[in-house]
C-alpha cells in the first residue's frame, strides 16, 4: 500500500495535485487564524476600490480587503464541501450496500429507487433540496450531499455486486459468516479504492456546486461568506473592479482543480494489483529482470529445405519491466514443414503463447520481437509492413484463439465477419465473398451454413464458434494455422470435433499446424513433433510418438508423468514437480529447471545447456539428458517435495 501511495506522488501531475491539495487544506486551517481580523476590518473611506498596492484585489462595499476575505473564506468553503461529500458518501454507501444485505427481493426495490434517483440531474436535485431545506448553509450542505448520493449509491451497488459474485464471498457465506460481517470484512475493503478515488473527485465537484448555490443566493448567507458568496457580491461590481469577482472565482477554480487532479492521479497510482489468473500473470511479468545473459545459441538446426513453411531462428520476445527488459522468449529456434503439425507444450508463463503471438505478429506494441530469422514461406515476418505483405499474411496464415467467446465481434453477423477477410485481402465483391464465407462454413461442418451465416456470434455454441473461427482462417488458402489452446474452453466431446476438423483440413490441403497447449495428451494425439518449453526456452524437441516413452529432458518426463490418463496406476500417487515454475524475468544463469530437477548438479546451475540434436530429429537442452531419474520416490519423500510446492 505504502509503495502505491508513493507512486501517486511520483508522477508530475500527481505531485502537483498533492501540493495543491496540501496548500488548500493548509489555507483552510490557517487562513482565518492569520487573516481573520484583516478580512473583517471595515474601512468606510476606501469602499469599492480597485486593485492597489495596499489591497491587491481591491475592496468591497464596506471597504474590506477582497483578497484577505477570499483567503479566509477557504475554510468555510472547504468544510462545507467536505461535509456535503461526507453525506453523499455515507448515504451512497448505505443505499449501495443495502441490496447485498437485504437479499434479492428487498434489494430489488432499493436498486430501482436508486436507479430512478440517478436519472435526475444532480444540480436539479440540489436545487430541489435547497428549496425544501430553505436557503442557508445547512440546507445547501444537505442539498448537495443528498443530490450526490444517488450517483455514489449506484457506483457502490455495481462494485458490491461485482465483489459479491466472487467465490470468496460465497465461501464465507458457506462457512456461516453473516451478511453484514461479510460486507465489512470482504466486500468493502475490496471496493475501497474506486470509492476513495470517486470521493476525492466528488469533493471537487461539491466545492463547485457549493459555489454555484451560494452564487445563486441559496447557499451561505451574510455575514458568513464562502467563495460563492464573495463571487455573488463581486459580480455586481464586475465593471468597476473585475478582481472582486475574479479572485474568489480563481480560488474556486484552483481548489476544484486540486481535488479533481488528486482524485485522478490517485486512480492512476492505485491500479489494483490483485492476481486474477495464470494467463493474466503471464502477460504482466512483475519480478525484476536480471541482466540479459549471453544467449545460448542452439546448434544443429538443419538448413531450411524447400518445403519449410515457417522458419524461426533465435526468436526473442522482450517486454519492458519495472526493473529493465524481461525476456519472455529466449532464443527459440524451430521450423515447420508443409503439412506438419508441431505442438508447443509448457506451463503458464513458459513463453509458448508469446511464441505464437510473435509468429503471427500480434505481440503488443510495447513488446519487442527479435530473431535472426523469422520467415513464413520465405517472406521475412520482421520486415516493415506493406500492403502486399499484409495480403500475404492475411491469406496464408490463420490464427485460432483460445476463447471463442471473445474472438468474434458480437455486434456483427458471422458471415459478414468471414466475408470481410475476402473483400479485404482477395478483392472479391461482397456477394462473392459472402458465397465463399458460406462455403467455408460448410467446410468446417457448420450445418445449414446459409442460414447460420446470417446469425450473430451469441447464437452459435462454443464449439461452433471455434469452428467458425477456423473457417475464417480458411477464407484464404492458409499454409499455416497457429492455434493457441483452441480446445481448452471446450467440452471433451466438442474438443474431439475441433481436433478432427483441424486434422481433416491438414490432410486435405497439406496445411501446417502449430498447436499450443498445456495438455500433453492433446498434443501427443494431434502433432507429429512436440516442442517442450520452459521459462522461455525450448528444452526438448522430439517426435510426438516418443513423448510418452522416449522423452529425455527431466522436465518433459515429469510433465508426462504428472498427468493422469485412463491407464494410470491407481495404487501409486501421481508424480509431482517440486517448486514453482521460474518466471522468465528471473531466469537463473544456468539451466532454468535446475532448482526443480532431481538430476541437477553444479554445472546445471552455472551453465545453461544448449539445445543440441542427439539423434535424428530429437533435440534436447540438458546436461543429463536421458539419465535415469532417482528411483521412484517413496510416499514419505513425496510429501516432502509436495511441501515445498
Amino acid at each position, binding site marked *: 500500500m505504502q509503495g502505491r501511495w508513493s507512486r501517486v506522488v511520483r508522477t508530475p501531475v500527481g505531485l502537483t495535485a498533492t501540493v495543491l491539495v496540501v496548500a488548500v487544506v493548509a489555507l483552510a486551517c490557517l487562513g482565518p487564524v492569520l487573516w481573520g481580523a484583516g478580512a473583517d476590518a471595515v474601512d468606510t473611506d476606501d469602499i469599492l476600490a480597485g486593485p492597489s498596492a495596499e489591497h491587491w484585489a481591491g475592496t468591497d462595499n464596506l471597504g474590506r480587503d477582497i483578497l484577505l476575505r477570499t483567503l479566509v473564506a477557504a475554510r468555510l468553503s472547504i468544510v462545507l464541501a467536505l461535509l456535503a461529500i461526507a453525506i453523499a458518501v455515507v448515504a451512497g454507501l448505505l443505499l449501495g450496500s443495502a441490496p447485498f444485505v437485504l437479499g434479492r427481493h428487498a434489494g430489488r426495490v432499493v436498486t430501482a429507487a436508486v436507479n430512478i434517483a440517478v436519472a435526475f440531474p444532480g444540480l436539479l436535485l440540489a436545487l430541489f433540496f435547497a428549496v425544501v431545506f430553505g436557503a442557508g448553509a445547512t440546507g445547501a450542505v444537505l442539498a448537495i450531499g443528498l443530490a450526490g448520493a444517488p450517483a455514489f449509491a449506484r457506483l457502490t451497488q455495481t462494485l458490491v455486486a461485482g465483489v459479491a459474485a*466472487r*467465490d*470468496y464471498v*460465497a*465461501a464465507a*457465506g*458457506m*462457512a*456461516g*459468516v453473516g451478511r453484514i460481517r461479510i460486507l465489512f*470484512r*470482504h466486500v468493502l475493503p*475490496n471496493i475501497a479504492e474506486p470509492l476513495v478515488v470517486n470521493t476525492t473527485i466528488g469533493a471537487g465537484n461539491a466545492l463547485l456546486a457549493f459555489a454555484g448555490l451560494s452564487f445563486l443566493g441559496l447557499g451561505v448567507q451574510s455575514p458568513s461568506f464562502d467563495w460563492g458568496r464573495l463571487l455573488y457580491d463581486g459580480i455586481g461590481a464586475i465593471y468597476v473592479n473585475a478582481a472582486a469577482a475574479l479572485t474568489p472565482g480563481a480560488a474556486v477554480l484552483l481548489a476544484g482543480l486540486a481535488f479533481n487532479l488528486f482524485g485522478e492521479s490517485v486512480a492512476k497510482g492505485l491500479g489494483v*494489483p*490483485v*492476481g*486474477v*489468473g*495464470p494467463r493474466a500473470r503471464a502477460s504482466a511479468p512483475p519480478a525484476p529482470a536480471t541482466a540479459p545473459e549471453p544467449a545460448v545459441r542452439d546448434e544443429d538446426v538443419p538448413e531450411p529445405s524447400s518445403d519449410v513453411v515457417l522458419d524461426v531462428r533465435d526468436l526473442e520476445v522482450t517486454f519492458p519491466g519495472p526493473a529493465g527488459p524481461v525476456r519472455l522468449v529466449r532464443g527459440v529456434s524451430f521450423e515447420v514443414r508443409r*503439412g506438419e*503439425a508441431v505442438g508447443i507444450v509448457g506451463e*503458464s508463463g513458459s513463453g509458448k503463447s508469446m511464441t505464437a503471438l510473435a509468429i503471427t505478429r500480434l505481440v503488443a506494441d510495447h513488446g519487442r520481437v527479435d530473431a535472426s530469422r523469422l520467415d513464413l514461406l520465405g517472406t521475412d515476418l520482421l520486415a516493415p509492413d506493406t500492403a502486399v505483405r499484409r495480403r500475404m499474411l492475411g491469406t496464408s496464415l490463420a490464427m485460432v484463439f483460445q476463447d471463442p467467446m471473445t474472438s468474434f465481434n458480437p455486434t456483427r453477423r458471422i458471415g459478414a465477419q468471414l466475408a470481410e477477410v475476402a473483400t479485404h485481402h482477395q478483392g472479391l465483391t461482397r456477394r462473392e465473398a459472402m458465397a465463399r464465407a458460406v462455403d467455408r462454413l460448410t467446410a468446417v461442418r457448420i450445418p445449414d451454413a446459409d442460414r447460420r451465416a446470417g446469425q450473430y456470434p451469441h447464437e452459435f455454441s*462454443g464449439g461452433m464458434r471455434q469452428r467458425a473461427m477456423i473457417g475464417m482462417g480458411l477464407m484464404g488458402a492458409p499454409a499455416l494455422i497457429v492455434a493457441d489452446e483452441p480446445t481448452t474452453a471446450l*467440452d*471433451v*466431446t466438442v*474438443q*474431439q470435433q475441433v481436433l*478432427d476438423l483441424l*486434422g481433416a483440413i*491438414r*490432410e486435405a490441403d497439406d496445411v501446417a499446424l502449430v498447436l499450443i497447449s*498445456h*495438455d500433453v*495428451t*492433446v498434443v*501427443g*494425439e*494431434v*502433432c*507429429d513433433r512436440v516442442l517442450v518449453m520452459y521459462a522461455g526456452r525450448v528444452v526438448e524437441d522430439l517426435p*510426438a*510418438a516418443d513423448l510418452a516413452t522416449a522423452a529425455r529432458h527431466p522436465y518433459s518426463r*515429469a*510433465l508426462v508423468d*504428472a*498427468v*493422469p*490418463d*485412463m491407464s*494410470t496406476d*491407481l495404487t501409486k500417487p*501421481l508424480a*509431482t*514437480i517440486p517448486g*514453482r515454475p521460474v518466471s522468465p524475468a528471473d531466469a537463473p544463469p544456468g539451466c532454468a529447471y535446475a532448482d526443480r530437477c532431481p538430476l541437477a548438479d553444479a554445472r546445471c546451475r552455472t551453465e545453461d545447456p544448449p539445445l543440441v540434436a542427439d539423434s535424428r530429429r530429437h533435440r534436447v537442452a540438458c546436461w543429463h539428458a536421458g539419465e535415469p531419474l532417482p528411483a521412484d520416490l517413496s510416499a514419505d519423500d*513425496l510429501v516432502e517435495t*509436495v*511441501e515445498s*510446492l
Partner: protein
Amino acid sequence: MSELCFDNVTVRYGRTTAVDGVSLTVPGGEVVGLVGESGSGKSTLARAAVGLAPLTSGRITLDGAPVPTRGRPRPLQMVFQDPYSSLDPRMTVGGSVAEAMPPGGTRAERRAEVERLLDLVHLDPVCADHVPSRLSGGQRQRVALARALAARPRVVIADEITSALDVSVQGAVLNLVRELQRELGLTILFISHNLAVVRYVASHVAVMRHGRVVEQGPTSRVLTAPDHDYTRELLAAVPGRTTRRSQP
C-alpha cells in the same frame, strides 16, 4: 462418515431447467465423481447442496436430515474451481482459514488450529501470514481446501478444483484429495469434466447430461463397461486414445 443424498432434486431458473430430477447418493467415506459437459447441471447441483442455488423441488439430505444452509455449523463445504477468485485478496491466508473455523477458543488455540490445517494440506505454516497474491495457483487451492476443512465438514464438494491449475500442480492436488479421503475418512463429491482425473480419485462415478444423471455406478465398471451411449461418447472423446498424426 456421513452420507450425502440428493433425492429427486430439480433446480429451475425461470424457464430453464438446470437440474432435472436428480437422485444421487454419496456414500460415507467415499469419493464420488460427477462428470458431464458444461451446462449439464453438475455445478448447479453442487451449488444447490450448499444453498447457493434455490431448490425448485426435491430434497438434499445429510444423514437423513436436511442440509443446514443458515448459521453454524455448516457440515457441507465446497471448494471452488478458480483459486484466484476464491480467496479474499486482502485477507491473510490464516485469516481466511480462521474465518471458516467454528467460533470459540483462545487466540493461540485458533492459531494452532490454522497451522494444523495448513500442515494437513502440506503448506508451510508461515504461509498463514501471507496474502494470496504471494502464493501460486496450486498453493491457493490448498488454502481453499484447508478453509473448507476448517469448518469441520462431514462432506466436501470439490467443483472442478484442478481445471484452473497447471498440469504440474494438478497431480499434487489430486494426491492430496486422495490422501484426505483416506486419512480423514472424508466424504467427497468430486466434480470434473476430466474422466482420467475422476478415474484416479473416485470410487463411484455419476454421468450427467442435460440436467439428468444418465448413468452411475462403480468407477471401474462405468469406465470400462458403460451402459449409456453418452458415457461411451465421453470415453471415446478422452484425448490420447486415438492418433491423428500425419502419415510419415
